[in-house]
């Protein structure tokens, strides 16, 4: 198996607080991996580090979508997005004054070329590109079953649809690795089941890897090929769902020390 993301000895300090401590994580091609851990373990900090929102204090983040290792720590978030890492947030952060289609179009724009001059001249190639973007955006909406909301303002969408739209918008940037931060948070059991199928479908159709942070253990266990467990910024376990279920360190972190 070829790894497409390699994180080596990642450390992140906030003043005196060490949020991540020598974390090593590797994600393989077409893998669905999960990052789990108790609240405050540093999961979201990890996402923020690899997407460039935080500059890691120490360690290396390497991507190799095409087999060539490339260091991305210290790069600006928009550059990292262009290199193929896309993410969603725990809370919904859609562009509320835009329609569903426009939200996706913003994501699409990062893979297009036309600049300001093109916008002013509005020449043929700009128009053609714009048309292509609309088609592509609509296609993504359809893939996620959101086409009925195409021209609706996102604030009028139901919660579950907004969550899916966030995933759709991340997909529009054409990532090779999709990072989902608690995609099932706030969803009802039926929506969570649908999400399970949706994530599998996204992997197949887009041929990408997915790393998710999630507290819904049922979803994590059924989806993941590989699970990474962190606690207090340190990695305490890694393995298949079955291995994790029987890992004493993980059980301790989640349930506390056995008293008997």
């Amino acid at each position, binding site marked *: 198996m070829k790894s497409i993301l390699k994180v080596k000895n990642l450390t992140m300090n906030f003043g005196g607080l060490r949020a991540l401590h020598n974390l090593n994580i590797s994600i393989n091609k077409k893998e669905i991996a999960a990052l789990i851990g108790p609240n405050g373990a540093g999961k979201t900090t990890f996402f923020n580090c690899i997407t460039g929102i935080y500059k890691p204090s120490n360690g290396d983040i390497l991507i190799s979508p095409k087999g060539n290792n490339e260091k991305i720590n210290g790069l*600006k978030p928009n550059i990292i997005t262009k290199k193929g890492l*896309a993410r969603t947030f725990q809370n919904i*952060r859609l562009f509320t004054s835009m329609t569903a289609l426009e939200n996706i179009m913003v994501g699409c724009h990062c893979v*297009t070329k036309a600049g300001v001059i093109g916008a002013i001249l509005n020449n043929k190639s700009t128009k053609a590109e714009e048309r292509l973007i609309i088609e592509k955006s609509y296609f993504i909406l359809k893939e996620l079953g959101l086409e009925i909301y195409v021209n609706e303002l996102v604030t009028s969408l139901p919660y579950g649809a907004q969550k899916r739209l966030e995933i759709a918008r991340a997909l529009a940037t054409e990532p090779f690795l999709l990072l989902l931060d608690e995609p099932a948070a706030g969803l009802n059991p039926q929506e969570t089941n649908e999400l399970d199928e949706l994530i599998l479908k996204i992997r197949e159709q887009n041929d990408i890897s997915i790393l998710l942070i999630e507290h819904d253990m049922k979803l994590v266990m059924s989806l993941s090929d590989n699970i990474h467990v962190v606690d207090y910024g340190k990695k305490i376990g890694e393995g298949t769902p079955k291995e994790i279920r029987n890992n004493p360190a993980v059980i301790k972190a989640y349930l506390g020390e056995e008293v008997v």
Partner: protein
Amino acid sequence: MDFDFLTYLFFGGLTRGSIYALIALGYTMVYGIVELINFAHGEIYMIGAFTGLIISSVLTMLGLPILAIVVLSALTAIIYSCAYGYTMEKIAYKPLRDSNAPRLSALISAIGMSLFLQNYVLLAQTSDFLPFPNFIPDFEFWEPYAHILTSPELVILITTVIVMICLTILIKFTKIGKAMRATSQDKVMAVLMGVNINRVISITFIVGSATAAIGGILIACHIGQINFYMGFTAGIKAFVAAVLGGIGSIPGAVLGSFVLGLTESFFAGYFSSDYEDVFAFLFLVLILIFRPSGILGRAETKKV
């Protein structure tokens, strides 16, 4: 009270409002994107007028036809102002933004920039009022209506409408417009969508400067004289208009400008022009008491 006088005041107010709107757009766009009151924005408008004057004088000496002078000097003034706006952002605001300075520091930097540009023009040019040639001729076809709305005022109104339409298209339908809207809503998310924030900010400053320069030239033609201090008062009025309409909102800035222009015009006409500012600002206070975030501003209820 005769009807002609009323319409005269109405169109006078609209013209004033148009000029305020052209400047207020820059304030509101910049605020929408970087949450900064760019107090040096009025100076960009003043620099636009000065550049227009200098270039048109040179071209007049060269003996070019009037249309060529108008087009060339307007274009140069716009480009020059844009360059100023762009450079100002890079010198005075970007370093502060990069070092995560508090917003108050950026505001002080803006005031500093404003004073610097005023005094720079004062030293480099003059403190006197300079006569500005009126490039807008009295159109013959407009003769019958000229007692209500003069030709220059007509040109100001039409130009403003055209600028508004272009701006709306830019923001609503183009790629950069979407990037601007995305950035103004959620900077972190916009960056994660691959939007280059620094470029969006630069372009916002450039577009704002361009509309201010257009306003500067139009008002200079209309009033017929310019001075290094003209940007300050106009800037403050436009800023007030932007707040009145709801700062950060583009339609709000336009509406606020027209409300302010009309109020001033009517009070000056029916009461006394000495008190126009008093009444205009009284009106502003009244509106803000009842709509604290401006006419079109969204009252934000913070989640707790």
